[in-house]
């Protein structure tokens, strides 16, 4: 069975893609078949993923590759391949499981949409591409799927295409991530040049194996940083994070699947996948490229957490939270805690999908309202949503012992603490934990506690098809911690390829108390600051945020996302648009003019020979007034119709030939 699954790995991405094609060919009215097809594709992918997962359990550091030749150019072959190792297998299961929950949720959420069929086609396509991405054993194949998930993200963000804001957000996402992708592309070319292969593992000659790495030497830093550009774009790291909050224009299941659980984590996955490139030649696990990763991650995590505090849109808060958590994962990878980062990625996939679906349920219940200040009191009206949401919130904040997020976050903090280069990231990350707890508390208070406000009066619990996935994900978010605890760090060991040992004594560690105190501080601070906000009655509908009341300038700064969008608008976008206009102008006038200048050699005769003549002067004036008339018009000036002009041209031509003859000797 082992080899069977290895040789058929390609089926995992192929089946959802095929389902997508099949759905695309359905007519708009066949909603049921579309949903069924999509779910079948996803169930198949999940089943295959589990089948693929099993062999990786049997041995430590299991790795199987299936390489094949894509095409030959000249007498060279371009080879691609799929790889199955703990990293890929864990990602596969998480993606297909979360994906399945979200597919089912979408059936309820999108029930009223007229493009229901198209939605499932896109979603299946995304799922296929994402599964392919994690399985890729070649940077090129990874890049291909990378671009395809980008395409799916573009299509799904802009799914409600009649909304100009959705279209603009889709464009922004596409272009911003593509900026990063260009760096990735360049890094890939460089890697290909140095190592001569793009296969990660190829029986010892792959680019991540020692022989391949040895060819890189100093260029590894640059290659790693260029590839990291791609990860920055996809994972919304500063300064390319601007697209991710806007991407919330897409339907909520999309936000949950793509912009929280899976695709945005692809950047983290990529760094983990090519980690040998980053850590090549490091001392104590510190290299320049990893240092860059750490600082980018720290900046992103803190900045996004701060911005999240001042947002009012329920999905935007979660989006910034995602950005912040991705920053945290990057920090973890940067300081050397690859396993910790991936564990957080997996756990985050579950609880962030849960939170987004919960928010989708809230939005669904509140007739499409996104503003948390107009909600309130949903605790009673939507009990299932509330409970699951609270589970997600506590997992995200990192409440110890029972929630998966807590254990992974501790793991990351522990890794950060021992980073040899600087302790600043550690303390900044501790601050990040407080902030996370704070903004999640604020959100919960606004949405679920206090009195009902404008949007939440007629709220109702969502149908079963939507609450079931919520419950499933909540269960995952809790029980996932079983394999995460220090007592039995099975996942950690699995990812690192070590045997796991059970030891209850390790459950109690100083870090647990640190994080307990920090989370408690964050939640307590949140309750203290926002205690009144939730209780505000509907007349005084909470337009003024307590923080805004206390620190109006700071709040404005955060609420406006630190004016980063505006800054880009004024600089990068203005500049590139100006460059575009300039190129156009140059083309129309300068280059064309230059070439017309060549053509005007003939015209010079016309001007010269008729200079005393009224005709010539007239033509000159005409020419200057209508300076932009075409070459044809100008050239025809040379055809003055006068024999003498032609004769003069002949004479000059003869002279030119004479000179040429002399020059040639």
């Amino acid at each position: 069975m082992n080899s069977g699954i290895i040789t058929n790995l390609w089926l995992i991405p192929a089946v959802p893609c095929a389902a997508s094609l099949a759905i695309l060919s359905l007519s708009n009215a066949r909603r049921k078949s579309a949903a069924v097809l999509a779910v079948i594709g996803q169930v198949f992918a999940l089943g295959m993923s589990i089948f693929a997962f099993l062999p990786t359990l049997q041995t430590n550091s299991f790795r199987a590759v299936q390489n094949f030749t894509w095409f030959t150019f000249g007498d060279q072959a371009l080879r691609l391949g799929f790889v199955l190792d703990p990293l890929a297998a864990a990602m596969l299961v998480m993606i297909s499981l979360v994906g399945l929950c979200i597919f089912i949720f979408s059936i309820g959420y999108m029930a009223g949409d007229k493009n229901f069929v198209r939605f499932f086609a896109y979603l299946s396509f995304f799922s296929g591409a994402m599964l392919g991405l994690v399985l890729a054993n070649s940077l090129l194949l990874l890049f291909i799927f990378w671009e395809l998930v980008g395409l799916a993200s573009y299509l799904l963000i802009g799914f409600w295409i009649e909304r100009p804001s959705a279209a603009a957000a889709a464009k922004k996402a596409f272009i911003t991530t593509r900026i990063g992708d260009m760096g990735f592309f360049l890094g890939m070319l460089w890697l290909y040049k140095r190592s001569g292969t793009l296969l990660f593992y190829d029986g010892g000659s792959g680019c991540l194996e020692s022989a391949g790495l040895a060819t890189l030497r100093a260029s590894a830093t640059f290659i790693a940083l260029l590839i990291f550009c791609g990860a920055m774009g996809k994972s919304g790291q500063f300064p390319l994070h601007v697209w991710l909050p806007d991407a919330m224009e897409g339907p909520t299941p999309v936000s949950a699947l793509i912009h929280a659980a899976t695709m945005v984590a692809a950047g983290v996955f990529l760094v983990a996948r090519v980690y040998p490139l980053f850590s090549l030649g490091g001392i104590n696990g510190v290299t320049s490229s990893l240092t860059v990763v750490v600082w980018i991650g720290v900046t992103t995590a803190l900045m996004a957490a701060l911005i999240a505090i001042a947002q009012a849109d329920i999905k935007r808060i979660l989006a910034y939270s995602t950005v912040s958590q991705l920053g945290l994962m990057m920090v973890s990878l940067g300081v050397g805690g690859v396993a910790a980062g991936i564990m957080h990625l997996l756990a985050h996939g579950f609880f962030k999908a849960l939170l987004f679906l919960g928010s989708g349920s809230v939005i669904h219940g509140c007739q499409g309202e996104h503003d948390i200040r107009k909600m309130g009191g949903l605790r009673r009206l939507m009990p299932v949503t509330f409970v699951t949401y609270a589970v997600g919130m506590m997992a995200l904040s990192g409440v110890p012992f029972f929630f998966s997020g807590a254990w992974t976050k501790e793991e990351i903090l522990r890794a950060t603490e021992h980073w040899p280069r600087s302790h600043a990231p550690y303390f900044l990350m501790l601050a990040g934990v407080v902030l996370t707890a704070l903004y999640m508390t604020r959100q919960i208070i606004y949405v679920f506690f206090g009195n009902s406000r404008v949007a939440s009066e007629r709220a109702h619990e969502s149908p079963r098809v939507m609450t079931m996935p919520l419950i499933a994900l909540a269960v995952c978010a809790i029980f996932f911690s079983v394999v995460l605890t220090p007592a039995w760090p099975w996942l950690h060991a699995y990812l690192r390829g070590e045997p796991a040992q059970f030891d209850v004594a390790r459950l109690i560690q100083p870090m647990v108390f640190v994080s307990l105190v920090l989370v408690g501080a964050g939640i307590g601070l949140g309750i203290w600051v926002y205690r009144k906000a939730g209780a505000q009655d509907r007349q005084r509908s909470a337009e003024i945020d307590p923080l805004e009341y206390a620190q109006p300038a700071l709040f404005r700064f955060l609420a406006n996302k630190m004016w980063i969008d505006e800054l880009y608008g004024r600089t990068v976008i203005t500049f590139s648009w100006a460059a575009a206009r300039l190129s156009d102008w140059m083309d129309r006038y300068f280059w064309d003019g230059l070439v017309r200048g060549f053509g005007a050699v003939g015209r010079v005769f016309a001007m010269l020979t008729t200079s005393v003549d009224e005709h010539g002067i007239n033509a000159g004036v005409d020419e200057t007034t209508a300076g932009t008339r075409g070459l044809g018009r100008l050239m025809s000036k040379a055809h003055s119709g006068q024999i003498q002009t032609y004769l003069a041209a002949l004479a000059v031509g003869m002279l030119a030939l004479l000179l040429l003859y002399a020059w040639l000797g």
Partner: protein
Amino acid sequence: MNGAAFIVISILTLAAALAAATLRKLMHAALSFAVAFVGIAAFFFLLGAEFVGLALVFIYIGAVAVLIVFTILLTRRDIEKDRGFNWSGVIIAVAVFCGLTWAILKTASLSIVAPHIRALTVKRIGEALMTSYVWPLQCIGLLLTAALIGALVLAMEEKR
């Protein structure tokens, strides 16, 4: 070959040619044109091509110059006001002259003196014309006839 004669002839020819090109009055220019061709004919004599020189005199001075004069007379109303002189022509002409002279002077193989040759008699020219060049001669005859008829047709008054 006589150097003094060459100098005299060339001065005469070039001066006359310049006059023909620049004199304002058309009639004067036409007369200078005739003189210039006398000079060129003299060159031909100097070079030992007497027959060509004579042909030149007959054709140009006897026929072309007369034709020019007739044309001037026929288009009388227009000739006196020969307006405008284009200086760019001068520039181009001077440039061409400089270019040619430079090329000629640069080519070292041209500074040779004339070898002694057998005098070119009319008999030899006639033989050549009637043997190796008989077809070109016929063509030229045809061309001249065509030109004659063409000129006549062109210049005849249209009958309404």
